[in-house]
């Protein structure tokens, strides 16, 4: 063994041991008795110790967000201000979420007296649930993908395993359905807000150029078809689902909306969001509190905490938990995965990287948790309701010159090398623009083109989701009032 630099040594104990995939021993690091069944980043766990480990991480992530004011107690009694809504996609993370929430907070029976009634009465604080009621919201997206199967009934079957949960099925086209909007407490509105995505400045369409009454499905398809890239389509669908779920939570008086985002999915979401210009909302990607505005009663206007209790549990751990606890996974349709957009590219990249560099996903999440937005926000985005940064358009026009209409360029025009390239006169656009009310990500979603050129969709104005009217209704209505032909 001369190559190790210690030729005198013949003792095997003195040789450098090979690094093992697991820690020092094959015995569970927790109970130190049973042989290990799973390796989680070099630590070995047995099956019996593994599930409590996952639920412990789950509770540690969730419980600090439950009580608005815990007082000075180190272990405050858990009591949420409102109801609970869980977002369910049929995937691994949300299936594990439902199971743990049910087994931890809804399956325990309070002690009963001789007559079978809870000791102390049903309203005794000890016998009350953390949340008065719990619902599971599923948004069916099959209308957005040709040939995709409707899986609402399969999902209903999976949710019905948990009798304490109420099933709330929604469809992605509800985002364009006035009747659904009124049903969830939104203000009724006669006019349809549309935007012309063929024009760079995103002019709101006047009543005369707005397409005739479309069904919600047609509106949604027109909206998605007018988006410039597959990335934009995938991002728009994700945002529609998110906003539908938020409004469902609001309308049901929820104080907490739980998502089944695992650590792996969280890291993918963070990198994907940053790659689409969403750096300003990195904090919201991790933990968010949404305060609805413009809705009447206090119960449906209370802030909703959006919590990801599986944020410290990797996808591998979720899979093992689901397998060992016999959790039925409905699964997700592959059509959505076929979109070659930034979200799916990021997923492939992170999942691939995790094999060679297993700590990457947790590093990404931990690093992003140390970040904060640089400046105070300038209102909320009309589409995603996340904070809007100041000066987005100035920044974009400074770093990418798209026309010679810019004042700075007009000043410098005399230095233009080509006498043929005089700045052309730009036609004045009489219609108000959606641009100032969008965050960087949503503006990029609507405007950033593919390298293959602009899609030609016949330039029909794209209808906007119903909540965009609520967000900017009064200002926008004033702005376009002169162009509206009816009420």
């Amino acid at each position, binding site marked *: 063994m001369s190559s190790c630099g210690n030729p005198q040594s013949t003792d095997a104990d003195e040789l450098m041991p090979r690094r093992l995939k697991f820690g020092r021993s094959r015995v569970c690091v927790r109970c130190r008795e049973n042989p290990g069944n799973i390796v989680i980043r070099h630590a070995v766990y047995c099956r019996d110790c593994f599930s409590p480990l996952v639920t412990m991480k789950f509770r540690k992530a969730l419980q600090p967000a439950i009580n608005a004011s815990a007082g000075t107690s180190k272990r405050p009694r858990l009591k949420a201000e409102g109801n609970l809504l869980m977002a369910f996609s049929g995937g691994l993370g949300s299936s594990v979420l439902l199971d743990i929430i049910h087994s931890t907070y809804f399956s325990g029976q309070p002690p009963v007296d001789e007559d079978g009634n809870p000791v102390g009465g049903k309203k005794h604080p000890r016998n009350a649930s953390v949340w008065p009621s719990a619902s599971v919201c599923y948004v069916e997206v099959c209308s957005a993908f040709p040939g995709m199967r409707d899986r609402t009934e399969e999902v209903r079957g999976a949710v019905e395993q948990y009798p304490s949960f109420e099933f709330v099925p929604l469809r992605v086209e509800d985002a364009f359905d006035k009747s659904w909007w009124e049903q969830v407490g939104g203000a009724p509105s006669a006019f349809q807000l549309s935007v012309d995505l063929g024009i760079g400045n995103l002019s709101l369409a006047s009543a005369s150029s707005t397409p005739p009454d479309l069904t919600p499905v047609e509106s949604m398809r027109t909206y998605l078809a007018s988006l410039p*890239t*597959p*990335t*934009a389509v995938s991002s728009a669908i994700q945002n529609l689902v998110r906003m539908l779920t938020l409004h469902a939570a609001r309308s049901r008086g929820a104080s907490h909306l739980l998502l089944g985002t695992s650590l792996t999915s969280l890291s993918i979401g*963070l*990198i994907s*969001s*940053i*790659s*689409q*210009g*969403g*750096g*300003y909302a*990195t904090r919201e990607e991790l933990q968010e509190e949404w305060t609805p505005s413009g809705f009447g009663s206090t119960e449906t206007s209370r802030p909703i905490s959006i919590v990801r209790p599986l944020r410290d549990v990797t996808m591998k751990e979720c899979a093992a938990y689901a397998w060992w606890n016999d959790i039925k996974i409905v699964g997700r349709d592959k059509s959505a995965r076929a979109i*070659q*957009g*930034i979200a799916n*590219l*990021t997923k492939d*990249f992170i999942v691939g*990287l995790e094999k060679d*560099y297993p700590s*990457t996903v947790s*590093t*990404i999440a*931990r*690093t*992003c948790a*140390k*970040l*904060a*937005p*640089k400046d105070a926000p300038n209102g909320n985005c009309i589409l995603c309701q996340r904070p809007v*940064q100041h000066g987005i358009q100035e920044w974009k026009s*400074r*770093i*990418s*010159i*798209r*026309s*010679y209409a810019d004042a700075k360029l007009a000043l*410098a025009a005399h*230095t*233009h*090398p*080509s006498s*043929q*390239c*005089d700045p*052309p006169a730009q036609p004045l656009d009489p219609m108000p623009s959606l641009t100032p009310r969008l965050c*960087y990500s949503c503006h*990029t979603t609507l405007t*950033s*083109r*593919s*390298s*293959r*050129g*602009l899609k030609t969709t016949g330039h029909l104005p794209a209808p906007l989701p119903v909540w965009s009217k609520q967000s900017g209704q009064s200002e926008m209505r004033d702005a376009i009032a002169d162009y509206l032909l009816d009420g």
Partner: protein
Amino acid sequence: MLRRGDSDPETLSVSVQVLTLSLRRSNHCSLVRSMAPASCALCQNAKAILKRPKTGQQICKDCFFYVFETEVHHTILESSLFKPGDRVAIGASGGKDSTVLAYVMKTLNDRYNYALELFLLSIDEGITGYRDDSLETVKRNQQQYDMPLKILSYDELYGWTMDAIVSQIGKKNNCTFCGVFRRQALDRGAATLNVDHIVTGHNADDIAETVLMNIMRGDIARLGRCTMICTQGEDTIKRSKPFKYAYEKEIVMYAYFKKLDYFSTECIYSPDAYRGHARAFLKDLEAARPSAIIDIIHSGEAFEVREEVKATQKAQQTCIRCGYMSSNELCKACTLLEGLERGMANSVITDRARKKINALGPAPDSLRTIPHYRSPLPVVSVEAPSHS
């Protein structure tokens, strides 16, 4: 080597192939080859001959030059990078970025009367078959742009060439040595030129890649500063990236259409696997949506490290051995050099390994060290361009 300075048909053919490969490697932005000739989306007069990678617009050659240069000008103005009379060193490797940077800096300096005194500063890492050839390009640039040139070598400064380092440590981790040594060498070279500012050719792709890399490896300190256009330590010269928003593809296009003379070979010692993954990922993102590069930079500019986290970061200090800025008692360059000198170079890459080398005892007195850094030094004479 890509040389478009002459009209040799064979060279021209090679050049076109290299450019076509560079531009078409990952997507379709490039020279416009549509059936019907479109007019330029900017001036509306001339025929469009290229599709801009950054915006997707089909534009003419003159408008491309104009917007490319004007965007760099806006970047310089917006950040107030220079003041009249500043002495500015352009970090020149002979590659496409630094060659285009030297050309654009000279153009803008003349066009907008920046009143800057420009220098070329090159670092010779001592990589046979790579740096020696690229330095020949820099020497030609010196003549073409009529700028003084200073070349500082690793051998002169550290007593080691990269060839010698690689022969001791192998190719793995050699980029760590090269990167750390180059950063300090640039500052030392700039100090000898007595300049106020160093500009480097880092482009938008480099910055977007660095943002992703720093998030993925949890380097919060670098993440906080990697999108800054200008960085300056307490004891170092200002360093800026005027091409911060310029796409790599556009830099190649600019060099091609301007017929600039640059050296296009990849470094022979650059197998940085992790960075390679990040770069490949970025190229995929760019192919999916070209604005991804600028969107990542926007993200990087939109967030900052939280105040309570900043408070836990190490304060900057001065290296006790060479006087250069450092976050530890010994700067990284001195640590790496000590490892090389003691024949334990691989033991000083990580902090944990560094503790092991410390446990072996103090460095011997006979150890070769880096000369003490003083900034700025008096002006020294540099090689002036000869007008032959």
